[in-house]
């Protein structure tokens, strides 16, 4: 077994056949982690002994029996730390399991390793983690993307089989593209958010990082489905995704939105994405240009709605019930002011201030209310487009991984990194990024496919077909 080339499905076959044992996976991963982590720093914590215990007791008859999954550090698991990349939660121990953790365990998987992230998932480079910088496994001078940069980097570095992340404006797909792995953002409501530390409630979704599309479908199958703990959870039965794998893309109607191919795209990215689109045509899909007219407003809409919700969601980090409390507190007000000043990072403060501003008296209609209306129009654009097309295709990110520190002083430019991924969150639809080639500098490029809400089966079908016809995912970074 070479752990760098295995997938969940290949490991499951070997486990079931008795060729390997679950603990062999832990040992092999441990070796790989030792080799890659000194340059990647994608994990915040991992506990090999605990993983071995869990591997030994794994029920191999379950769909993910014996498979370790790395978890972004903003998903609660009982008795584990859950820092969200923030000093504020450095000492917090989760007293409960997120629904996705319960579901993974029910499916026989176990959690191995907690991954780095931008503080409270706010960022596109993982440089806003309070604890460490994570490097891109393809070039350690570059960022891994964000906010789920830890999960993307360890799956990209092949030091995790699969991982969970969260995606509010592209936080799974953008780092997946930049790290050369498959990153999937399910439709809003498909995966329970219960236990995911909220950034922006109406946009957040948990989704898988994986080496292959098939693995993405396997993990989503395990974690998806109605959860009575979440009021916005979808009540529709979850389709069997595997049934849709292996079908061709013939006769699928694929839209190419012109707004996603304008200026500002790296020419190499553009060329690789175009090549992928040509492949779909060649395979018999009906590829046509389409329009999503409100695309240009996505960033504005996103930064108003996401920060507004975040300003409210993060108000609970107040130094009262858990987390950091300043030693200078003399009354409640100073407890809040100082605890938050001391323990929240600059980007988080910046977004809380912006979100508070757009909701404040006199500005609500001009900003928040207007943004909600434009959001409805964006959603309508997709509804109209999906009347004509099964899927929409675009680059995941306009550029490849940028150099560390490059955009730290310019928040607006950093925000623009999410330009192609935000719309799917705003519209609540599903989207997936998968590798579609490498640039001259050997940096991975991601192709984004978007499907209608609950259109995951077709999304997996087309992604899988593309993946099977290309060998991008089999290329391994030479970081170790």
């Amino acid at each position: 077994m070479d752990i760098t080339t295995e997938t969940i499905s290949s490991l499951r076959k070997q486990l079931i056949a008795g060729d390997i044992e679950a603990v062999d996976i832990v040992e092999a991963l441990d070796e790989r982690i030792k080799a890659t982590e000194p340059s990647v720093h994608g994990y915040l914590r991992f506990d090999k002994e605990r993983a071995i215990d869990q591997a030994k007791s794994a029920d191999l008859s379950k769909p993910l029996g014996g498979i370790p999954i790395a978890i972004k550090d903003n998903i609660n698991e009982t008795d584990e730390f859950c820092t969200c990349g923030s000093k504020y939660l450095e000492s917090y121990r989760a007293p409960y399991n997120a629904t996705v953790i319960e579901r993974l365990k029910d499916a026989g998987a176990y959690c191995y390793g907690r991954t780095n992230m931008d503080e409270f998932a706010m960022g596109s480079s993982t440089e806003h983690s309070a604890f460490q910088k994570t490097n891109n496994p393809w070039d350690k001078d570059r960022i891994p993307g964000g906010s789920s940069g830890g999960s993307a980097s360890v799956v990209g570095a092949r030091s995790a089989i699969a991982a969970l992340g969260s995606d509010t404006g592209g936080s799974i797909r953008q780092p997946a593209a930049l790290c050369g792995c498959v990153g999937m953002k399910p439709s809003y409501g498909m995966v329970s958010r219960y236990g995911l530390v909220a950034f922006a409630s109406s946009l957040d979704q948990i989704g898988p990082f994986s080496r292959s599309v098939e693995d993405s479908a396997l993990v989503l199958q395990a974690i998806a489905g109605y959860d009575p703990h979440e009021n916005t959870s979808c009540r529709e039965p979850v389709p069997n995704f595997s049934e849709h794998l292996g079908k061709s893309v013939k006769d699928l109607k694929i839209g190419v939105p012109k707004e996603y191919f304008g200026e500002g795209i790296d020419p190499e990215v553009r060329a690789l994405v175009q090549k992928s689109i040509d492949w779909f045509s060649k395979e018999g899909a009906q590829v046509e240009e389409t329009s999503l007219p409100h695309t240009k407003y996505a960033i504005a809409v996103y930064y108003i709605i996401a920060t507004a919700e975040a300003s409210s969601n993060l108000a609970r980090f107040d130094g009262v019930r858990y987390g950091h409390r300043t030693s200078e507190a003399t009354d409640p007000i100073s407890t809040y002011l100082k605890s938050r000043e001391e323990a929240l990072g600059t980007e988080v403060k910046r977004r809380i201030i912006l979100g508070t501003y757009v909701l404040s008296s006199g500005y609500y209609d001009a900003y928040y209310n207007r943004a909600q209306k434009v959001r409805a129009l964006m959603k309508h654009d997709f509804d109209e487009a999906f009347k004509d097309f099964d899927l929409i295709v675009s680059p995941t990110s306009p550029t490849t991984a940028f150099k560390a520190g490059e955009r730290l002083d310019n928040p607006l430019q950093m925000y623009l990194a999410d330009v192609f991924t935000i719309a799917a969150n705003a519209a609540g639809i599903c989207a997936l990024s998968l590798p579609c080639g490498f640039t001259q500098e050997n940096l991975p490029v991601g192709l984004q496919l978007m499907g209608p809400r609950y259109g995951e089966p077709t999304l997996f079908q087309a992604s899988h077909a593309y993946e099977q016809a290309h060998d991008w995912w089999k290329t391994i970074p030479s970081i170790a």
Partner: protein
Amino acid sequence: MEYEAVIGLEVHVQLKTRTKMFCGCANRYGDEPNQNTCPICLGYPGALPSPNKEAIVKTILAGRMLKCEIPDYSEFDRKNYFYPDMPKNYQTSQLHHPLCDKGEVALHKYAFPKESQENPEASLNKVVHLNHIHLEEDVAKSTHYDDHSRIDFNRAGTPLMEIVTEAEINSADEAYAFLKSLQQILIYGDVSDADMEKGQLRCDVNISVRPKGETKLGTKCEVKNMNSISGVRRALVHEIARQIEIVSSGGSITQETRRWNDALGETTVMRSKEDAHDYRYFTCPDLMGFQTRPSLFEEAGKRLPELPQEKKSRFMDSLDLSEYQAEVLASDRRLADYFEEALSKTKESVSVANYIINDFLATEPDLDSPKIPAQQFAELAELVKVGTISSKQAKQVMTYMFEEGGSPKDIVKAKGLVQISDTSSLEPLCQEAIDKNPKSVEDFRSGKKAAVNALKGYVMKQTKGKANPQLVDEILLRLLG
């Protein structure tokens, strides 16, 4: 110059549910601190709310009892402000789409304080309109020590209904009557126990004064911290006087929040307008909006009780009770039910009402589980009706019922309380009364018909009260005639 007060109330009502508003923790008072908590009501990272259907149904029921309009669609908003007893530092509440719009409460005579009921200036039957009713979550409870405070989150997240009136209450007595009427209706619907002293009903008042006839509103103050309905009345009497004094001596009112101190009988400044909140309301993205029709509206409809005033009218019109009797019995749904249970066994409604109001209530019974079965009052009324015992004896029977227990029939038998109703034994005694009281006989014959009572009293005394009084009357009149 004459002034009038303009008062609006914000009434918070704890709903009777098993679980909290957005989580499955017990909605229960008196447990160990922080015993009924979970990630949701503690505002833990990652926890999400699930709305309690029962609390929504009860709020709609309150709205229907209070003649509100129930909009088809409702949703929750977040009200953002920091406070240590608020776990998420926003309160899930309703601003744009509350469960109930408008509504009203009529101020009936008996809702006013006793001493004001006969006051010709009391605004009997005035209708106070509601602005709306919305549903939200309660905050935790903090206790203050010398150098720190402690917080118990058991109450955090329990369902709380807020009833907001229009500013059309004009006196402390009206505010009192409003709260009494409201309380009665809420208890009737089993929406809340609504005990102000237990914090189940809490009331903040907004009050301003203006010269009578003026249409513009004066500057208002908010007054908080009243712990009983009479406390609200006292606070208002004081605050109205304070404001009138300031205004009439040429001063002006500062807009502020004041705290009522019931022991000192005064209000003091709590915070000024400069600290006014900017609540940054927005629709809660964790909660889906919901339709009130058909199911929630109909579920509330199934539970609509006969309201106190309707019941009172029925008691007067169909059961011949006086207004006072009807008012007392209808004032408490349990008492009314008890009364009606007795009436399933007799038609003597007036007698039964008298027994319950004059005698039974004097024993301060536990109306949740009364020791005396209601049917016993029916049995008693029947015994009087058929003449087995006199009304006077009925009183004696009740004394035994309350003190020793047992059914009226058994008591009558055991204590030998049967009324003497045969002429052959009473006639000799009546003759004896006439013979021994010539003065009374003379008075009677000279026209003082009331003198017969002295003769009757003699017979009653001789029979230890067992003689049938009507029969004694008949015999005496016949012998004297």
